[in-house]
């Protein structure tokens, strides 16, 4: 029998706001335990939540990018359960009127995945067990960090489709600037709901939910493992138990966490502390108008407008800050292909050497554009330009001032160059002889002598041409 795997995803994405969803504490990752906290996010009695404006904006932007219908009147609800990472013993979330519903994502290959809903909620804290004292430490720094949870319909059939969707999601959300989507820091977390059924069947099998998937690789492996496990169970005449399973990266296996059969009764009810949110048509229009061009659209445009190869387009759009840098450099007059080469070459190398993200790059587009202009204008040769680039990168230095201060301008005084060429030729009769007798190597030596005399500042092309004409 052939089997079909049916997968739905619940993805939690931490939003890149400066402050938490209901208080003004920083959302910065890391920090000593309980130092990004206040009475509100530690659930002290008497404190009240006040919604962060930016969270709403980011959730709507994400919903628009996922082609969702935006709920015009949205509300928060309380989800009640006891766990030490949740200091109020309820999570403020959305059940009855989530902010976005009914979206779809084109994941390529003619496949579309339906988004059931997208809602806003608060993150929980972190628990770390200390075996020395046999106690668990609760750190509430992450409590109240804003999340959107994106729930898909069970539309995936393979791990590849899941990864394609997640890549797409990640690309869209980073382009929108609503999240940095760093799985290693937990800002993108994924729960996978998976069931299997005989191919062709239209009823769903019993599903399991897998948690603790911290990389795309882990997701793909967990899906393969779990599908295989379920098929084996059924083939052996056993039953799949509806449960939550945890992926163990080291053992390459999933194991049962807590049974969903004693499903929690979360007693959701409308959050009395937060008045409803109504989104006006003007508000939505303004956000629609401000939606940035996403990576896919950019790639198409770069190919069409700048005639860049597909590889370049892919590289330049791999990061929104990089793409923005490229576009700004081109807008300042740099030839697109040259700008692309500089960015894919020197810029990425410099970033990588500094373990720096593009959005934190000190170098600005005007500086790179000026450097490229000096090269194309014949004022600086490419090799010298690379040295200048290295020198100005960290402080976004003034290219012209640096070139002038270090006397690096390319010599375009034809008379001076000719004078030097003449002097070198008369000082090296042996080499001239060798060249004329067919020894091409002698030509290189002569070029080197001229360049040396001119301290490398002449355009090598001009020197070449002049020498050849004098020697012929």
């Amino acid at each position: 029998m052939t089997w079909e795997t049916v997968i739905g995803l619940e993805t939690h994405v931490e939003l890149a706001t400066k402050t938490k969803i209901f208080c003004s504490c920083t959302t910065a990752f890391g920090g000593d335990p309980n130092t990004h906290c206040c009475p509100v996010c530690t659930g002290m009695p008497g404190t009240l939540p006040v919604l962060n404006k930016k969270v709403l904006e980011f959730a709507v932007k994400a919903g628009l990018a996922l082609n969702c219908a935006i709920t015009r009147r949205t509300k928060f609800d309380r989800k009640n359960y006891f766990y030490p990472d949740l200091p109020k013993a309820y999570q403020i979330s959305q059940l009855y009127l989530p902010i976005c519903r009914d979206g779809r994502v084109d994941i390529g290959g003619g496949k579309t995945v339906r988004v059931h809903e997208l809602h806003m909620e608060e993150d929980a804290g972190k628990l770390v067990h200390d075996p020395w004292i046999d106690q668990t430490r609760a750190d509430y720094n992450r409590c109240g960090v804003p999340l959107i949870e994106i729930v898909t319909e069970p539309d995936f059939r393979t791990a590849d489709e899941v990864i394609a969707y997640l890549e797409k999601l990640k690309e869209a959300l980073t382009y929108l600037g609503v999240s940095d989507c760093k799985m290693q820091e937990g800002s993108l977390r994924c729960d996978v709901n998976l069931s299997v059924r005989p191919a062709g069947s239209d009823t769903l099998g019993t599903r399991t939910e897998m948690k603790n998937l911290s990389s795309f690789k882990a997701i793909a492996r967990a899906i393969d493992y779990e599908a295989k496990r379920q098929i084996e169970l059924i083939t052996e005449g056993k039953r799949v138990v509806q449960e939550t399973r945890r992926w163990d990266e080291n053992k390459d296996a999933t194991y049962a966490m807590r049974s969903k059969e004693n499903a929690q009764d979360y007693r959701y009810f409308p959050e009395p502390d937060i008045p409803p949110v109504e989104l006006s048509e003007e508000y939505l229009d303004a956000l629609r108008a401000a939606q940035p061009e996403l990576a896919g659209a950019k790639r198409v445009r770069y190919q069409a407008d700048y005639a860049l190869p597909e590889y370049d387009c892919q590289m330049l759009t791999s990061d929104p800050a990089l793409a923005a840098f490229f576009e700004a450099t081109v807008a300042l007059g740099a030839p697109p292909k040259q700008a692309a080469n500089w960015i894919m070459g020197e810029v990425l190398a410099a970033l990588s050497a500094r373990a720096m993200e593009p959005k934190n790059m000190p170098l600005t587009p005007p500086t790179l554009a000026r450097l490229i202009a000096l090269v194309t204008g014949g004022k600086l040769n490419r090799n010298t330009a690379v040295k200048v680039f290295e020198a100005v990168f960290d402080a976004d230095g003034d290219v012209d001032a640096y070139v002038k201060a270090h006397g690096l301008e390319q010599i375009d005084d034809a008379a001076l160059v000719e004078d030097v060429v003449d002097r070198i030729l008369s000082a090296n009769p042996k080499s001239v002889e060798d060249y004329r007798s067919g020894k091409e190597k002698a030509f290189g030596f002569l070029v080197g002598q001229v360049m040396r005399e001119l301290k490398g500042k002449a355009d090598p092309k001009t020197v070449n041409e002049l020498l050849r004409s004098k020697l012929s």
Partner: protein
Amino acid sequence: MKITTELVDYISELSRLSLPKEEKAAMTAQLERIVGYMDVLDRLDTAGVEPMSHVFPLKNVLREDEVVPSQDRAELLAGAPAPDPEAFLVPKAVE
């Protein structure tokens, strides 16, 4: 509506309360009486009435996304029943 011991056990578990036996029996009887009285609401036809969670037409109460320094950790932890300089302590709670 009959309030059974099983129901009281169920809601007690959800509420993280474990009533001693005598208390539970009294509570069950009281809850049955109270809930029975609440059934008076059934007399009122509420078909088509929108449930009202907020009595005021207040909406869109939002805050700017501006960081305010967090509270001193020692102050936040000062009232914790199990003292630790960095965190709130609980019995093992990691799966």
